[in-house]
């Protein structure tokens, strides 16, 4: 540790008057200089954030309560304030509900599936393969960083009805594979399959990191006591991994609710009978039509859904009070925080 003698904060020019109550932060010249320097360093980010993130969010909120369309762009104030009419119109639209159902189907099936698969692979990589683990990590992470358009071209080829490899492989087992992308019942499962394959990598890397926090000694002790692999997984690994699982679930949930790229490139929009139309895709379509007010309202409804899902995940997966087992004999406090740790990894 470097031994630097920090200068004592210089004697302020004005001493706080006795009896002035709690010490009031006076703006001394040094403090002012430091503030200016701090703001100077922070200014570029703050500016970019305000202009490119905060301003669009606020302006889309304002757009969602007006009837603005694309042709009003030359004169954006020449629009009517319509209150929640846009939200009501969106909630009345049957295609919006279909998109919401499709997105819900995708999230309810996709999130647990990808978390389960990623956890299993992470555990396998952690315990089984130690030498080539770097190679496998890269291999699993590649789909995450590959261009979605290139991936879609290959997957469309794989999913072909008669000559695609998936259906040919199913044929070896005597199963007549469906027309994946052309059948309204099977198009969403095909999208789920592809999305899970694509996003496994991120979760595997996160879970591998989380698994480092599970002490091997606990596993050894449990094995000596006669616990089998399933019991060790359920009673040791998962509880210790809880914060990491929460982090993974929240990240994946937020990403999956905004499903957009896969349906766009695989089924070019809504898919057969709009079976792969997701909410983001519908918002994109409405923006394309120029219905900026309606599209903004829909975006805020999607935002609401994301917030609700995240709250639900925090409720289910965050650290809880240990169940009170017996009356506390000692005077030690039993309370522990109920709020979730912010993705802390031990």
């Amino acid at each position: 540790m470097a031994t630097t003698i920090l200068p004592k904060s210089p004697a302020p020019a004005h001493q706080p008057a006795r009896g002035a109550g709690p010490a009031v932060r006076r703006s001394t010249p040094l403090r002012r200089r430091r503030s200016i320097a701090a703001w100077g360093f922070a200014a570029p980010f703050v500016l970019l954030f305000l202009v490119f993130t905060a301003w669009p969010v606020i302006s889309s909120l304002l757009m969602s309560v007006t009837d603005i369309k694309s042709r009003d762009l030359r004169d954006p104030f020449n629009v009517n304030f319509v209150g929640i009419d846009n939200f009501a119109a969106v909630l009345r639209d049957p295609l919006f509900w279909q998109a919401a159902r499709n997105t819900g189907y995708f999230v309810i099936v996709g999130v647990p599936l990808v978390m389960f698969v990623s956890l299993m692979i992470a555990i396998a990589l952690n315990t089984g393969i130690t030498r080539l683990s770097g190679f496998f990590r890269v291999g699993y992470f590649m789909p995450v960083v590959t261009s979605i358009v290139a991936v879609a071209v290959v997957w469309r080829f794989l999913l072909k009805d008669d000559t695609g490899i998936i259906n040919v492989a199913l044929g070896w087992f005597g199963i007549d594979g469906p027309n994946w992308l052309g059948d309204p019942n099977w198009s969403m499962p095909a999208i789920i399959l592809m999305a899970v394959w694509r996003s496994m990598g991120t979760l595997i890397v996160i879970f591998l990191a989380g698994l480092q926090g599970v002490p091997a000694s606990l596993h050894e002790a449990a094995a000596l006591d006669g616990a089998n692999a399933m019991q060790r997984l359920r009673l040791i690994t998962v509880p210790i991994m809880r914060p990491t699982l929460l982090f993974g679930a929240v990240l994946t949930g937020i990403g999956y609710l905004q499903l957009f790229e896969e349906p766009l490139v695989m089924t070019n929009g809504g898919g057969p009978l709009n079976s792969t139309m997701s909410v983001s895709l519908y918002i994109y379509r409405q923006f394309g039509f120029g219905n900026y007010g309606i599209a903004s309202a829909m975006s805020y409804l999607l935002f609401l859904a994301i917030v609700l899902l995240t709250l639900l995940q925090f409720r289910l997966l965050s650290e809880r009070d240990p169940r009170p087992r017996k009356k506390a004999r000692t005077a030690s406090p039993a309370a522990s925080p109920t709020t979730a740790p912010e993705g802390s990894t031990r």
Partner: protein
Amino acid sequence: MSKILRVSVAALAVTSMLALSGCGRSDAAPEEDTSAAPVAEGKASGDITVWAMGTEGEKLGAFAEAFSEENPDATVTVTAIPWDAAHDKIATAIAADQTPDVSMVGTTWMGEFASTGALDPTPDSISPDTFFPGAWGTTVVNDVAYGMPWYVETRVLYTNTAAAEKAGVSPSPTTWDELKTSTAAMQAAGAKYGITLQAGQQGAWQTLMPFVWQAGGDIMDADGKLTLDSPEFVDALAYYQSFFTDGIAPVDVPVGTLESSLISGEFGSMVSGPWHIGILEEQGYADFTLAPLPKGEKLASFIGGSNLAVFKNAENRDAAWKFIEWLSQADTQAAWYEATSDLPSVPAAWESGTLASDPQLKIFGTQLETAVAPPSIPNWEQIATVIDTELEKVTRSGLDPQEAATAIQQQAEAIGTGL
């Protein structure tokens, strides 16, 4: 810190209130000057900035040098824009008032851009009679013409001649009944499907609407009211559906297999535009017959293509209109066809050269005389998407045509024409 947070949230709320209270459409309709100012006489001069998409964007720059030879003081600067970015780019330019002098505009975008007030009405130096009526119709929004039709395309029937001969039917059916019987015969004689018609998804309306027009129906009537649930529309839907329920047309054509299936005879025939001549010949196949789409009550097909529009705030307005007027001359249109295979929108250009002698192009020329364009209303794309969606239910799930037509009409009325 929380005090600062509270103050900033309050300030934000107040600003938003002020902004929203300042909103409000003025009740009076804006007094739009829709009379076109005349174009000055004499040669063009100055720099003319043009935006164009696709192949046209690539070829127009070199092609326009001929204009600079005739007008030595004028230079034409062409910026090529990809099609998928073009709509947003033009919309943004209009919003930011950064428009060029001239832009190529897809026919289905005219309604939307014209209603922003950013396009310049067509002056008298360009006469409607020079163009095919369907093509001129794509430039008219709310009874005012903007820009001019540059090139056109229309849809005709492509038939695999060998498949037709094998079935003993003519490859050029002239009526609805003949089309039905000949495609069924081709299927009975060995083709997997007698005809392929787009069953749904984006753009399917362009294959359905010709049948509606052939039946005598239309999208809007003379008063501007939508007529998507007329008996003629239902008839056309029922006829279209019959191809799918009888199994003559496939519900699903995997991407990229259309041409190979036509060439191999798996598909007996298909409906498409002039671009397929080149595509099929590139694959070494020339044994196909073109025919105008069959007659219901009358002959009709879909006309598409692109228009050229001048912007109101163009810096070099007069030269821009002169350039456009030069592009509409018969010999320029014929030369443009030679350069790009884009069909001219001017009938006079069809009277000489390849356009007059080539028998396949003659079919397109004949079809263009009866081809109809959808109305240039701002909300057309939305209504077209509704038609695509309901059409898919008709062909895939067997939805009753009358129910589908009523659903289309209801949703289209809710969307409105946008005028």
